[in-house]
Every structure is written in structure tokens, then in C-alpha cells.
């Protein structure tokens, strides 16, 4: 796998068959030597600690309710602050909608400038070939003081790698454990904001849980 440089990124963006699309690209300077800066979007998912006792991903029956109760989607307008407190986890998303060609994969890396303020970005940092959507960012304030974020600020970088063979997040079909065909990994269908966890759709998850949750 090789990292795409600026010219290769631009070339990929003009490929007529299976282009790399990044919209809206507000400023061409977002395309760096070997990465593309992405901005913070308008939507956030915040957690409500008091609403549930716990979240058990293996308890499929109650998981959806637990997630709905414990997580809350909000929208922050332009020039409006979003404050993330020390120790707080919030899900944000990139302002940019990305369409990755089937020959590229990408990694999301938090900008070090934010890291130095204590903000840790994107723990699930790999984006599959063929993925289409805004990328959900897991934001954690690991610092000592509350941080103010605004939609539109440059928050992370995408680094593109050429895949050895074509693969698609959306179309790859694999046999599931129940014998039926399932779409591999394609749990998130063209998201335009941060997505709630869909860990309940991992069909093997109940197997690993306490026996009465099967």
C-alpha cells in the first residue's frame, strides 16, 4: 500500500470512472502534500450518563433502547460553540462527505494541534474502500480544561492509501454465521452525520454474551 501525494489525490478526484469525491471542499489548501484536512460537521451525538445503568453490546434485545436512551443527537449551527468537557466522549462527523473509490483506503488522523490541547480524535481510524459518507469521529477531551469546538474548524486529516486489490465497503458479500449472505461491514448507508453505534448488528455478538441474552 502506498500513500497518495497531492497530485495523486487530485488525479484521483478527476478520475471519471470511480472518482475520489470530497464535498464540500471549502478551501483547496485543505489538500496537503500527502493528506486532506477535514473539518468538523454540524452534528454531534452526546452521551447522557444518567439515562441508563450500562450498555451491554451482547444484549441485543435491550441494546437499541439503551443506546437511544444514553445517546442524544444535537445540531450546532455555524459560529455556534460546542463545548467538550474533560473526560467527555462526543461523536462528531466530518463536514466533508467522502466517496472512496474501490481502489483506495483511508486513515483518519487527528490533527496534532488539537491533540496538544488534549483532544483525542477518531479511535476507529480506518475507512474501507468504497465507503461513502461523512466519517464519524470519536472525540474525547483528555485534557484538563473544557475545549470549545466550532463546526467548520479543521479537525483531522485523511491519508489515502492505494489498495492492492479492489474491494468495496458497500458491495462485498460474505456468508454470515447464520448461513445467509450478508453485506460485509456496510452497516452505515451513506451517513451524513455521526452515527450511533450499530454494534448490535454484529451477528456473532450475542454468542459471546451472558447465556440468557441469546
Amino acid at each position, binding site marked *: 500500500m502506498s500513500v497518495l501525494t497531492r497530485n495523486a489525490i*487530485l488525479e484521483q*478526484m*478527476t478520475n471519471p470512472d470511480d*472518482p475520489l*469525491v470530497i*464535498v*464540500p*471542499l*471549502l*478551501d*483547496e489548501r485543505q*489538500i496537503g502534500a500527502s493528506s486532506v484536512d477535514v473539518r468538523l460537521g*454540524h452534528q454531534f451525538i452526546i452521551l447522557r450518563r444518567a439515562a441508563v445503568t450500562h450498555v451491554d453490546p451482547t444484549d441485543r434485545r435491550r441494546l437499541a433502547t439503551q443506546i437511544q436512551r444514553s445517546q442524544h443527537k*444535537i*445540531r450546532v*449551527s*455555524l459560529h455556534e460553540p460546542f463545548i467538550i468537557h474533560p473526560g467527555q466522549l462526543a461523536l462528531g462527523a466530518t*463536514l466533508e*462527505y467522502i*466517496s472512496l473509490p474501490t481502489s483506495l483506503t483511508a486513515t483518519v488522523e487527528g490533527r496534532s494541534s488539537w491533540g496538544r490541547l488534549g483532544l483525542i480524535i477518531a479511535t476507529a481510524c480506518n475507512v474501507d474502500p468504497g465507503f*461513502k459518507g*461523512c466519517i464519524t469521529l470519536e472525540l474525547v477531551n483528555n485534557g484538563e480544561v473544557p475545549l470549545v469546538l466550532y463546526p*467548520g474548524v479543521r479537525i483531522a486529516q485523511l491519508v489515502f492509501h492505494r489498495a492492492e486489490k479492489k474491494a468495496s465497503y458497500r458491495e462485498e458479500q460474505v456468508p454470515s454465521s447464520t448461513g445467509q449472505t450478508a453485506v460485509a461491514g456496510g452497516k452505515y*448507508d*451513506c*451517513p*451524513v452525520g455521526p452515527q450511533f453505534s450499530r454494534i448490535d448488528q454484529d451477528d456473532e455478538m450475542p454468542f459471546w454474551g451472558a447465556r440468557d441474552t441469546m
Partner: protein
Amino acid sequence: MNESVFYRLRMLVAFEIDSFEKQLRALGSSHFPSQVASDFISHLRGELSSQREAIAQIVLDYGDDPKGAGSRLRSEHRKLVEKLDYLDSLENAQTQKVPWSLVPTIERLASELLPRKRLLTASTSELNYGIRWYRSPKSALQQFLILELPAIHKTNAFLHILVGHEFFHPLLEKFFSRETPPVVARLRATCQDQFAKAHGQGDLFQKQRLGEIVEILRHIWHRALEELACDMGCAAVFGPVCVFAGLALASGGNLDEPPSPEGRFYPPWRFRFRSVLRYALAGEEEGGQQGSPLDVLARVLRDADFAEAAEILEQQVQVIKGETEQDTDLQGIKRLWHLRTAYEEVEKSLPSAWNYVKNRAEQMERTWLTTMKEVPTHLRHLELLVPPSVVRRDMDDARGAPASLSAISIAAWLHQLRGEVPDKNAPAETLLADYQRTCRLVLKAFEDVESKRRYDSRLQQVPTMDDASQDR
């Protein structure tokens, strides 16, 4: 007014103002997708404060003039009651209750057509779009318009094109003040003839009845023409998708429903579609070889290798033409004398209504006629499952320019209609998932267009290195 009654009314009004104020304060801490709601709340609080002062003065004046003070207090109460509806509107304008990503777009469109107005977007439990405003020109409240969208269709981007229809309602006030007197005169003459035939020369009772009937006919004419003019205005901005969206909304009801008091004298949908096709989508007679704007759009699509989309467009227009060639709505109207008479006047007024809304639409920065060349680009984006938010000027233009709303809407509908044909037998869940995905992409595109426009205006304001060197 008796002192005891005056005291009770005073307490009633004081309680209502206090409660109103508390609810406004609570709403003030809610989240709204734009500044309009906060400004509206501040304005209402200011009005409440003025009312409090006015009431304090009325109480002081009671001793000198109990009757006058009583009627002034009732007047203050009436003014307050008129504003109570705004609490519901504000409640339903909160971010979670409206298509938040669309609100900045709606506000920008409104500012183009209604430059001195502030638009509050709210949801309603009714399955309809609406706009209302405080009619008194003396009140500062008349600057705020309340646009209502059906809550159940919050994220249905395909239907929201119909907000274009609503924007034209406040614009038509001048048109009607010019158009109404001659129409009423003609209606009166027709009614007088009819009365003379039926009852001979009228006595005082007949004159009163005549006045009432003329007023009913005027109302039917006004309601029909207003709706038709708004439909045509919407089509002048967004093109054929207004009819597609209208048909989607109307498909659950009877397209021939004749105007009636129960239906608030709305014209039949079939009549509405026919008027839009006849005026707003037909194109100018002198169009010559170019044909109608719909023909031009079809050609643009074919030239960009979207022949299939062009066919879908033509088929859909044929479907709507087929609907409007049936005259079942007209039969319902012709059957009743009062409807027939009012609609004869509607037919006469339609050309001037069309000219009026067309002129207004032409003042906008962009309409579908000037942006249809973008449609193929957006169709391509939608095929790639990408929000159709930008148009690249050339291959080197990585950023692109913000797309136009009308072109996005047309592309979205054509994309959706293309998908429907081969997948007619697909499971309902798949069709719905496709529909919802396109809605998501379109709403995201609308949001991105606004972000891009704002950022671009910032780029234009920031001095560049070149500017600095020129200054030297």
C-alpha cells in the same frame, strides 16, 4: 365597566402575560437552527413589556373613565390572544422539530423574494405546507413570517420544494389590491343579472343577499387565483419538480375535489397542475425552435449522455399532462353556478397572475431556467451516492462552485424517478431505503451549498498576498 369585572379582566390579562413571558423565557434557552427564533422571542418579549406598561396606565385611568378603560383593557387582551399562536410556532421551530439542514437555505431563498421579512420555519401536525403572518401593516410583528412544514415529512427533501409555493403568498398582496376591484365589479354585474332573472328588480333584502353572494364569489376567486399564482411562482423558480412534488402530496386525495367551505375553497389539484403546465412550463410563444423550457432541459440531459433521464422527464410530464387532459375537475366546477362564475374570472386573471409571479421570480439570483445545465452534474453525483452540492468549472477546479437549489431538486427527482422504473417490483423496504438515502444526500447538499456560499464570501473578503502587493 364594573369595577369587579374590570379587576377580573385585569387579573386574567396579567396572568396570561406572565405565563406567556415565562414560556418565552423557557423557549429562549431552547436550540433553534437560526437566529430568527431568538430575535422573534426578543421581539415578543418587548411587545409584552409594552403591553404591561399600557395596562398599568389603563388601571390608573380607570377612576376617571371606567368605560373607556374597560374597552382599552379588552383591546389589550385581544392583542395578546392574537399572539398566543406564536408560542406553538416557536415550540415547533426548535432544531429537533424542523429539517435543520434546510433552514438556512429556506431563509436565503426567502430573503431573495421577501427581502424585508424574517422567516421562522416550524413544523405542523397538518399534512400541508403553510405560511402566515400578522396582517396589520402597523405592527412590527408583520416582519415575521411563519413557514410551516408537515412534521411527518421533516426529512422528505422531495416535498420541501413546495416551500417555494408558500413564499409567493405574501408577495401577492399588491397584485390582489390591483386586480380585485374590476373583478368584483364584474362579479357584481353577473350576479345582478342572475338576480334580475330569478327575482326581478331587487329590494333591500335582495341587495343584502347580492352583497353576500358577491363576497362569496370574490373569496372563491381570490383563493383559487392565489393558490394558482403561488403554484406558478414555485414552478418559475424550481421548474417541473413543483408539479412532481405537488402530485406526490396530492396523490392521497381526490384530484377533482371541487372548492368548498370544508376544503377552504382550495382549487382542485387537477386544475392547479393544468395551470402550471399551461403557463409556467409551456414557455414563450416566440420560443421558436428552442421549444419549451422542458424541451430544453431534455436536450441538456441528452447532450450530457443522460438520455434515460430525459425520457423519464418526458414520460413524467406526459403523465401529468394526461392527468390534466381529463376534465373531471372542470365538470365539478361547471355543475355549480357560483363556482362556474368565480372560475370564469379565475381564467381571465391567470395571465396577469403569471406575469406578476414570473417577474418576481426573474428578480432572483438563479431559477431553474438559468441553472438547468447543472442538472447532469448532479445526476452523476447522485449516481455515485454523493450529495450534489458543487459544480466544478473544469477538471482543475477541485473546490467547485456552490450548486443551485433548483438544479439539485430537479436532479434529485429525476434520479429518484429513474430508480423507480426498473425496481418497481423491489421490496418496499429497499425502495424506501433508496428514497430516504436520496433525501439525506439532498438535504446534505443544501446544507453544504450554504456553508460553501458563506465560506466563499469570506474568501472574497480576506485580502490575498496579491492584493497586498498591489496596494504597495
